[in-house]
């Protein structure tokens, strides 16, 4: 009970700092600017194609592709995922690095909070911030849904994918922040690791055999793609949740080791 209160205390503190400084407003502004731009261009493209298809109704190939999930939201989700790659390091880099640099780690870790309460608090705050940003983009299907019919189930799967992908990236970012007291270093490490987990599946295309298949199944992009198709696969769920737990666990180990070193 007491640890839950401690966890909530950390969440509230982090959110106060996020909302009290420009971090949230700047990342939010650019995230929504880019998301809005891509949504708009996708919709415009979709309407041009459907206009053309209506004129030459005899072309069944184009007609089969004409559904808003395929042409508007799948590309949008893919773009949002790439924006995440750039956004997450900015959200997570200060979480633990700044505490160490400013010396407040000495306060935080001498308060009667377990390491888990601190980690879950910081992770929870970053995730909430991300969910708020993501919630703004829900207005896109809501608006589009007024005009055309949408497959809400498939859209829901896509959003679940974005939430899980975001959480996975944030857990990795938090871990990177625990490694150093320099925010820039934390940001660069987070970005590099995320990029690695993004593209690690590409080796499969080089014909790398079994090893390639292992790499591919480690790839974030690989597992995310199923969600954007509207498919919720247990394998992808298990992958994302293990990814999150793994990096939060590494963060905890990293914090523990601080007690024994210096």
């Amino acid at each position, binding site marked *: 009970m*007491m640890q839950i*209160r*401690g966890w*909530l*205390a*950390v969440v*509230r*503190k982090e959110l*106060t*700092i996020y909302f*009290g*400084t420009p971090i949230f407003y700047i990342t939010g502004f650019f995230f929504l600017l880019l998301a809005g731009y891509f949504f708009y261009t996708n919709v415009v493209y979709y309407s041009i194609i459907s206009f053309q298809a209506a004129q030459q109704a005899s072309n069944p190939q184009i007609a089969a592709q004409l559904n808003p999930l395929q042409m508007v939201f799948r590309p949008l989700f893919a773009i949002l995922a790439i924006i995440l790659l750039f956004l997450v390091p900015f959200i997570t880099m200060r979480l633990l690095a700044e505490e160490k640099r*400013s*010396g*407040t*780690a*000495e*306060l*935080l*870790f*001498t*308060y*009667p*909070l*377990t390491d888990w309460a601190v980690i879950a608090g910081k992770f929870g705050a970053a995730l909430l911030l991300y969910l708020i940003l993501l919630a703004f983009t829900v207005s896109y299907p809501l608006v589009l849904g007024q005009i055309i019919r949408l497959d809400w189930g498939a859209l829901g799967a896509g959003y679940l994918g974005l939430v899980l992908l975001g959480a996975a990236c944030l857990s990795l970012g938090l871990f990177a922040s625990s490694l150093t007291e320099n925010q820039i270093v934390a940001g660069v490490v987070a970005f590099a690791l995320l990029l690695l987990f993004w593209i690690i599946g590409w080796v499969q295309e080089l014909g790398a055999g079994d090893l390639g298949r292992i790499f591919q199944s480690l790839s974030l992009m690989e597992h995310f793609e199923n969600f954007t198709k509207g498919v919720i696969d247990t394998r992808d769920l298990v992958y994302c949740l293990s990814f999150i737990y793994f990096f939060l666990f590494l963060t905890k180990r990293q914090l523990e080791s601080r*007690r*024994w*070193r*210096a």
Partner: protein
Amino acid sequence: MQTMIEAQDLTKYYGPQLAVSRLDFEVAAGEIVGFLGPNGAGKTTTLKILAGFLAPSAGTARINGYDCVTDSLAVRRSLGYVPENVAIYPDLTVTQFLRFAARAKGVSAKAETGEVDRVVGACGLEEVRGKLAAALSKGFRQRLGLAQALINQPPLLIMDEPTIGLDPSQIVEIRQLIKNLEGDHTVMLSSHILPEVSQLCHRVIIINRGQIVASDTPENLSRQLGHGSRVLLTVAGPDEQVRAALAAVSGVNRALGQGEGKYLVEADSGVELRPQLARVVVERGWQLLELKSQEFTLEEVFINLVTEEES
């Protein structure tokens, strides 16, 4: 009397470097203890171990009966810690910061506001409550550091150099704040400012190169380790003759002229020189303007101890 801090064989290595070596000490509940030593002596390391921030490489430390490593949470519940160079969250206001501290320390939601008000009052932070911590002056930051430590009334307070970097009037204020804690809290504070320690503390532990070199009350330390007794005289008379006459008194080891008719006379400890010195001056027909015995300051004791260690 109940023991608040109990350190046994406390040892800490940073990599191959020995920072603290086999420290043994106890602090009773209610005591104010000064932890004294030159920079790099191991003060901060020891305090960090006691506060549960670092784990010792060997040995044990118990706070309020709980082990600092195995019962870390219970230890952290019993203490308030003021780190060196006061750590504060610059992006939180004073009230936000203290509310966070209260929640983190498990103060109930009902008692939270009252507890924050209490420490704000005790530390004189009323006028800056709504300000961002980043905008506070050094003196207020130090008070804020103390305020967060006082939240939830911990029986033990550990302060690392609480007055460092403050101006003289701020130092007096902080010292008064600490003095006010006497009775309700056990306080362990580190410092290298000796007058501060001798004014505040019941007992002083002097540490050098990771080892305890002395532990006693400030008065006892200056008496025992002062290497003899000293008398200060002010005499109106011919300079060189006065100095020679004082040096000739039996039992005097040394007589030093300090200018403007002041002389410092040193003897072995326990020898009472004042009557003889007064007689000599008066017999010669000089005027005795001042005569007083002078105690060794903690500063001199400290330098003696530290240099003895090194030689």
